[in-house]
């Protein structure tokens, strides 16, 4: 991951073509959800060591937002998918 990212649309491309935003797990709550729910979404992160899901954008390629599922200690990538296709993800 830290050198190359397999973009589902463009193929494997160097990391320089991508930008990273952060944790892809939090889901934007309903507008009227409780304060704690919004606080969790905005500010609180599980931040585990190991398998994580992270938002990246292929900024110098297809410009799609991607969910990269990977290990944040070994940097092994398990999957990369288009964020808009995520089921139960960050919707």
């Amino acid at each position, binding site marked *: 991951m*830290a050198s190359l990212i397999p973009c589902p649309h463009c193929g494997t491309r160097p990391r320089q073509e991508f930008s990273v935003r952060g944790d892809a797990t939090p889901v934007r709550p309903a507008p009227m959800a409780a304060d704690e729910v919004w606080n969790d979404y905005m*500010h609180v*992160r599980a*931040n585990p060591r190991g398998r994580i899901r*992270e938002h990246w954008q292929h900024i110098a390629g297809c410009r799609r937002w991607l969910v990269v599922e990977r290990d944040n200690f070994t*940097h092994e990538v398990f999957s990369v998918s288009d964020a808009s296709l995520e089921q139960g993800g960050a919707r």
Partner: protein
Amino acid sequence: MRYSAFSIFKQALAGNLGWKPAWREPQPKPHYDVIIVGGGGHGLATAYYLAKEFGVRNIAVVEKGYLGSGNVGRNTTIVRSNYMLPGNEPFYEFSLKLWEGLEQELNYNVMLSQRGIISLYHNDSQRDHYTRRGNAMMMEGVAAEQLDRDTLKKMLPFLNFDHARFPIIGGLLQKRAGTARHDAVAWGFARGADRLGVDLIQNCEVTGIRRESGVVTGVETTKGFIGCNKLALAAAGNTSRVGEMAGLKLPIESHVLQAFVTEGLKPCIDHVITYGAGHFYISQSDKGGLVFGAEIDGYSSYAQRGNLATAEHVMEEGVTMIPGLSRVRVLRAWGGVMDMSMDGSPIIDRTPIDNLYLNCGWCYGGFKATPASGFCFAYLIAKGESHHVARALRLDRFERGFPIDEAGVGTQPNLH
């Protein structure tokens, strides 16, 4: 034993065989008044000040590796108090004042070298920003100077004045800023704490936090259960993992920051210099290596290593700022795991769990904070309330809407 030129002379005549260990290697006792998780700079400083200033003597520091194995031993050693926001500036200035007496305080030469930090700026809006920052410093009584291009040309003739994509138009100087020998800070606090009776327990990883009726009563470790009245976390990049053991979820993401050192050179760069058209910063160590870095790699990471793309970017910024670095060779790259907070500023606070105290969110600026972080954390643990310079560094400031966002980029940790 006390360190001095005389002790060196005396011991040298005895073949240097009489030196005593800098600290004991104690086995954990069953119970302590305070256990501090993390034997890095902040944890050791907390233990030292708790014992020295607040009369708590029954303290243990538990460290999963060796003392100083975290970020205190893998940073770029910069010490400064050139912050802008009222939540930060008094705290970092308090820290710098502690630095200025640290060698005598600890009887350990941490080699504080107040070489001055120069923050370059390259356009009018950056100049305005640094003016605001410089005036904020001066409001707090911290001396700052604005340097124009001609002054900089005389002071730092090696900067890129003639062929810069983003011309240098000036810089903000804090003369009292500088560098310190990072390992020595950990060792100095460790030795100081040990001499005050603090148990420094190395190779002791916390595997669980025991709670009874919601109250923390001790930690499970690889050396068994250790009980305590108060538990204080100073675990930097591993904060979330330790916090999780007590069911805490925190406003922290762990990221890797790379740092670099060149081969040793005769003195050629006097100050700490930071680049305004990028994130590059550089200084020269007493040993002669140019120590430098720039931005974090940007992705979540618990690995103490970075990637080549970021390294290349750092070098690009370096030669853009100082073209003469081009033929200088980089010796070594390393990485530290940063506890990036949601607003780029730290947290020293109680937690919703009784007897559990939190010190984290140092991002990549924790080294300079070491003494004040230790002092203020000790103050909080001992007195149950925040030290006045750390009052804004609250855990609940995000949900209450009081972020301390020096970069003005919001709640995305990798942008800070």
